[in-house]
């Protein structure tokens, strides 16, 4: 079997494992939809819309939670899943087989990206069906896809890099959530930021704000031109490259010594 066929096969098993794991399937899949319902219930009366007058706050939450879905499916899911696989010895066992290491990581990443993109489609459909959020036109579709793909790649890489900071399985949820949640609040994901201040300056250092901004722009039917936010894509990409370099140096395949 060649390595491509091997990777396809590995994706099949990783995908099966993902959907059969109630914890990962729930937190990755149900969370963004749950937030969508909750935020719309709480802020539904707000007249704020990034799409301009006549819109609703759902116009904001639909693309913003697409960004959130990419982050949980890629970053959270990979960081937690790989730490678990490492600490329970699954990575070490795989290293002793002829399976090339990249095939395993590639399969994990592929499943995460597929889950993330599936969620994006569901969120878009959800927003259209229940909150009358207009779909983006074909004109900005390439920009939306670019934002999602660069975002998915960046957050997968960040998830892998984060595993090098997590010492054990118990610490994984704490470390992973602590790195992400504060930023979600100040990065135009959970709350629409309408006035710039110190917090938005801080947020713009990190990649989350750039993902949500790029997605929201491309999703907005009133956006002029192609909707590409090159600066956002470049900053995200820089984080992604840094994360890859970091992972290459510090990635561990073996659990911490037990004795």
């Amino acid at each position, binding site marked *: 079997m060649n390595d491509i066929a091997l990777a396809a096969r590995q994706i099949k*098993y990783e995908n099966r*494992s993902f959907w059969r*794991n109630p914890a990962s399937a729930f937190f990755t899949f149900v969370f963004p939809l749950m937030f969508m319902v909750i935020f719309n219930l709480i802020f539904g009366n707000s007249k704020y819309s990034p799409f301009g007058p006549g819109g609703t706050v759902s116009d904001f939450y639909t693309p913003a939670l697409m960004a959130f879905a990419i982050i949980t499916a890629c970053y959270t899911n990979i960081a937690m899943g790989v730490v678990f696989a490492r600490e329970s010895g699954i990575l070490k*066992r795989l*290293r002793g*087989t002829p399976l*090339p290491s990249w095939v395993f990581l590639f399969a994990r990443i592929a499943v995460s990206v597929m889950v993330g993109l599936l969620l994006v489609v569901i969120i878009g459909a959800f927003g259209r069906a229940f909150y009358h959020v207009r779909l983006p036109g074909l004109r900005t579709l390439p920009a939306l896809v670019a934002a999602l793909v660069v975002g998915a790649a960046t957050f997968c890489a960040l998830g892998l890099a984060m595993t090098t900071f997590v010492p054990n399985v118990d610490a994984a949820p704490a470390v992973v959530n602590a790195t992400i949640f504060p930023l979600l609040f100040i990065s135009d994901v959970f709350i629409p930021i309408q006035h710039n201040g110190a917090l938005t300056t801080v947020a713009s250092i990190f990649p989350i704000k750039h993902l949500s901004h790029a997605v929201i722009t491309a999703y907005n039917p009133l956006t002029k031109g192609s909707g590409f936010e090159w600066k956002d894509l470049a900053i995200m990409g820089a984080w992604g490259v840094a994360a890859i370099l970091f992972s290459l140096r510090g990635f561990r395949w073996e659990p911490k010594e037990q004795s």
Partner: protein
Amino acid sequence: MTETAIDVRGLRKSYGTVEAVRGVDIAIATGEVFALLGPNGAGKTTIVEILEGHRQPDAGTVSVLNFDPARRERAMKQRIGIVLQSTSIEQFLTVAEVIEMYRGYYPKPRPLDEIIDVVGLTEKRDERVKKLSGGQQRRLDVAIGLAGDPELLFLDEPTTGFDPGARRRMWDAVKNLVSLGKTIFLTTHYMEEAQELANRVAVITAGRIVAEGPPGTLAGRETSQTVVRFRLAEPVPALPRSLKKAMTSKNGRVEIEAADPVKVLHELTGWALEKNVTLDELEVARPTLEDVYLQLTGAEGQAAQ
């Protein structure tokens, strides 16, 4: 014709200032079942993980199927099977799915049903890994190790923490492999396991091999003196003088070292019948592998029990 499956010379490995392995030589022929015995922390796992390619040696030469395991070549990994000491398995796949997944990594995998059968998990083939008992998961570990139909199988403490029934089932599984002509490198701290499975044993303590040989003759076990033991409940007439010389007695427990146990037993039982003495708990024992092992590993061996 005997080929060498594993050849290790002058192997050394330190962790910081701790010398875990201090100059070890091991040669294992194809088809042999070799057991590395030793207390916890003696260096067993370090050695086996160097052979598997998981760790790099500090000094010495290591050859596994004529490969240098430190180079982690795919061609070597295609021909070996590894059962690590403590690893979990993909929890949400079934027994058959997990084995099937691992089979796909090898050029000439062993048929799925044969693998499941060899480790005795036929009834559990469609059960999810999560639902298996500890012993069943361990046998699945072995099944995964067999997925590629390896010529050489590493088993690192395959039955630690098992109940006696589960241990028997694991031994049966390993014996099945032996009958297929596989070379097996086993580490264990159970004497019985080494005795049952291995045709050659090496005892390691504090990073050095202190004895090596077939389990029956390890460290001169076959020439050691037999001991006749029994208990005397109440004061009895004096034993024959010929027996007294080799006798030690403590709290009514008597031990007689016997170079010729037939003669000693004859005299002893003759005397007992004649004087109408009961010999409680009478037994004749050769030193067990465990006795030899404890003697070789000294206090360290006892501390680890």
